[in-house]
């Protein structure tokens, strides 16, 4: 059993599954010389004519450009530039109907040729001395993208790092009507072989296989002659069958290898280039002639002179057709590409681009519209015809049902959209259209999924950021609080809030203790009383001193002792009254009083209020006869002090004589205190004294305020 390489060398051919034999109709154009058409009045050069992204614009509106001048830059690996096909002026950079089935507007350079065909300076590379990188850059800068139809940037396929066993040159051109590559091979076989040489220099393949359909005898002969000097170049005529020009199909034909699903030929050591691409590569490297023109088959029964035309990229289809004697029928359709894989143009201003190999203007009899679509009868003819060994009818069901998982399961992505299934379908179902729609939907969904992932990542990143910011803020606040606390402790100052809390707690505890222990209450009252006495004494002392200082004589005090005395007396009387009432209350219900100190407090409060009232009255009195008081606020203070002293005295007396003087109400009354009912309770006296004090203070304040 000879090895694969030996078999290939020996010229063995294999076969691929399915395929169809439509009428080829290539002879209309294939034997004619390539026509050279005059410059069109306008050229529409789309920014992007390949698979990938378009480059940055290098020219401006109104600028004069030379033939071959780059209009966009090759700033990205997936970018190939476009060039000015002739010298002239950039009229506009605008949108124009695209050469795409969608016919969506697309950015184009509109160029008005000046007819001079002035070239930019050209620097041909010497293939013997140039290194790989230089050649690859030249291929990219010359804007070369696959000219077989897909438009994949050639420099990527030519700069492959993987080892390459076979370089396959695709000269099959299996689609009916099209003879552009045939014409090119007949006309320029040596240039094509030079292109193969350049690719061999870049890829170092073991062998070069040139696949070409048997119905192109002149081209086969020409190529064989051109390759006669190269030992490892094999021209392999293949049987006429559609779609043997498909990449995977041709690989299978020539090497019996199958490209695994979802992989590229490079993964199995094979690189394939279209013959037109190789011609362009040779021109670009050896002549520094960028890709600005191509051969287009213009054919169909509505043309008087169908032929292959050497057309500048950007030439409107209408110009090409009129050059070939187009006589439009009613409801004429014009197809860009072949009858199997092409698409109908919406209007004839669409320009020729790098991937345009055919313009087909058929008559209605030649290529009638498809009949009405009928139901699938499950005949299985499509499965027999499918070159990718798929199950087209299953794919149709799932496409209609939009069941994308099932479509993946049935390998929709391996469909090459050759149209063989639709061609054989007896129900005239446009199967490929369904697949195209499904593929577009799947692509869209993948894009959505990707976007959702990105959005999720961004959303999560944002949340993480916000959370981190929040945490940072919290940490900073805590740190600041800690620092503050530390500072306070260092300076000895305690936390005011904590202190206040402690105080409140202590008070609460006290009150609890009070409620349970009457004795303690009494003791406390006593202590308070003592404290008050002390304070009153101090105040009296202070007042006396003050008076002494200011007036140098205590006369004013004696001058108006009555007033103060009267006021104090009134206050006292009132307080007493209140106290009496309170005592009465206490007497009637003494248990609750002792039980609840709050009641006592309430009573005291009432007393105080009354005392206040009394004080106000007193002030009124003071106003009516205020001469000394208003004259000197100090007098009032003195009076108050005296009152206080008296009160204290009374209290003291009362404290000391509490028991003994119980019946001596009248004798004590001379001292104005009249504490008769009060001596029943030491507390009462204290209250009275306090009231008196309060009144005095108030009076003092009042008088001061008046003066002020």
């Amino acid at each position, binding site marked *: 059993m000879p090895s694969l390489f030996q078999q290939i060398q020996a010229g063995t051919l294999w076969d691929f599954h399915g395929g169809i034999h439509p*009428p080829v109709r290539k002879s209309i154009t294939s034997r004619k010389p390539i026509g050279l058409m005059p410059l069109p009045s306008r050229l529409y050069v789309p920014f992007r004519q390949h698979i990938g992204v378009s480059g940055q614009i290098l020219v401006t509106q109104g600028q004069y450009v030379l033939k071959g001048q780059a209009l966009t830059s090759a700033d990205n690996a997936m970018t190939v530039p476009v060039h000015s096909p002739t010298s002239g002026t950039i009229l506009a950079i605008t949108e124009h109907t695209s050469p795409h089935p969608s016919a969506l507007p697309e950015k184009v350079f509109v160029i008005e040729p000046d007819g001079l065909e002035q070239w930019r300076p050209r620097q041909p590379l010497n293939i013997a001395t140039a290194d790989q990188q230089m050649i690859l850059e030249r291929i990219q800068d010359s804007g070369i993208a696959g000219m077989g139809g897909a438009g994949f940037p050639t420099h990527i396929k030519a700069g492959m790092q993987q080892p390459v066993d076979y370089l396959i040159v695709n000269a099959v051109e299996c689609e009916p009507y099209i003879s552009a590559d045939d014409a090119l091979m007949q006309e320029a076989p040596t240039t094509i072989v030079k292109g193969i040489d350049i690719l061999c220099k870049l890829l170092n393949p073991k062998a070069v296989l040139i696949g070409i359909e048997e119905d192109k005898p002149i081209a086969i002969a020409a190529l064989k002659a051109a390759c006669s000097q190269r030992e490892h170049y094999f021209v392999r005529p293949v049987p006429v069958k559609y779609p043997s020009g498909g990449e995977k199909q041709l690989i299978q034909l020539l090497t019996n290898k199958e490209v695994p699903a979802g992989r590229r030929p490079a993964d199995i050591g094979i690189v394939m280039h279209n013959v037109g691409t190789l011609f362009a590569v040779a021109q670009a490297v050896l002549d520094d002639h960028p890709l600005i023109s191509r051969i287009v088959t213009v054919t169909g029964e509505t043309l008087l002179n169908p032929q292959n035309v050497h057309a500048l990229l950007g030439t409107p289809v209408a110009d090409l057709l009129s050059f070939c004697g187009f006589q439009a029928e009613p409801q004429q359709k014009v197809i860009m590409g072949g009858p199997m894989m092409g*698409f*109908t143009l919406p209007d004839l201003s669409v320009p020729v681009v790098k991937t345009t190999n055919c313009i087909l203007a058929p008559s209605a009899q030649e290529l009638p519209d*498809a009949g009405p679509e009928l139901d699938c009868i499950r005949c299985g003819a499509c499965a027999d015809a499918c070159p990718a060994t798929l199950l087209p009818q299953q794919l149709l069901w799932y496409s209609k049902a939009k069941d994308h998982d099932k479509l993946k399961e049935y390998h929709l992505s391996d469909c090459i959209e050759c149209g063989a299934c639709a061609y054989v379908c007896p129900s005239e179902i446009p199967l490929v259209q369904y697949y195209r729609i499904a593929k*577009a939907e799947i692509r*869209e*969904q993948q894009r959505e999924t990707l976007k959702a992932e990105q*959005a999720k990542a961004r*959303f999560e990143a944002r949340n993480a950021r916000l959370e981190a910011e929040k945490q940072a803020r919290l940490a900073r606040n805590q740190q600041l609080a800690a620092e503050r606390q530390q500072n306070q402790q260092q300076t000895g100052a305690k936390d005011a809030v904590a202190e206040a809390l402690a105080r409140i707690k202590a008070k609460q505890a006290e009150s609890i203790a009070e409620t349970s222990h009457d004795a303690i209450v009494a003791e406390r009252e006593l202590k308070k009383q003592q404290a008050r006495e002390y304070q009153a004494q101090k105040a009296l002392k202070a007042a006396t001193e003050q008076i002494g200082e200011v007036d140098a004589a205590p006369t004013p005090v004696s001058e108006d002792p009555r007033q103060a005395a009267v006021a104090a007396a009134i206050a006292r009387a009132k307080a007493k009254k209140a106290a009496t009432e309170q005592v009465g209350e206490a007497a009637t219900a003494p248990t609750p009083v002792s039980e609840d100190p709050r009641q006592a407090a309430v009573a005291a409060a009432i007393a105080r209020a009354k005392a206040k009232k009394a004080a106000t009255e007193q002030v009124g009195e003071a106003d009516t006869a205020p001469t000394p008081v208003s004259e000197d606020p100090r007098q009032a203070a003195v009076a108050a002090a005296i009152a206080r002293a008296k009160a204290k005295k009374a209290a003291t007396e009362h404290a000391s004589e509490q028991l003994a003087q119980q019946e001596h109400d009248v004798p004590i009354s001379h001292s104005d205190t009249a504490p008769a009912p009060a001596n029943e309770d030491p507390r009462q006296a204290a209250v009275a004294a306090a009231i008196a004090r309060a009144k005095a203070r108030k009076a003092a304040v009042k008088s001061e305020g008046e003066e002020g």
Partner: protein
Amino acid sequence: MTLMTALLALGILALLFGALLGYSAIRFKVESDPLVEQIDDILPQTQCGQCGYPGCRPYAEAIANGDEINKCPPGGEATIKKLAELMGVEAKPLNAAQEPSIKRVAFIREDECIGCTKCIQACPVDAILGASKLMHTVIADECTGCDLCVEPCPVDCIDMIPVPVTAERWKWDLQAIPVKLVE
């Protein structure tokens, strides 16, 4: 004696295999994707809140807890179908109140923007660029079209514009190409 030997042997074997299984259950434990994660992966992550929850993940949690699966207008039919499959429930049409909308992205009329940063704070995916008192703009590629920035804008300078159809995004029109060749 034979009985004892048999019992002993079987017992030892049982212990041995039990230990082996127990060990492998720990050693080779498979971290299964929790349901919420799976649901969240299906949702379109626009974080638009049209479902009534404050984001996709809360809605995913709600679905896991038994909420309806048809509350996501940006996801549309496809999402509902996937959710129905995952949750093992019947796919329902989108909630009548929530119409599936065409894809839109936010666009700031930049000469009207006052630079208040309110939209930046509203954007769940950080797709708006700008700083205080400086003009803002939307990164169209990152915008999920959730509408959340429209409301906070004090000068109403944000428009939701439909995403333009490009050749790459274009969905084929049936009837466009006659693929039949007749002799």
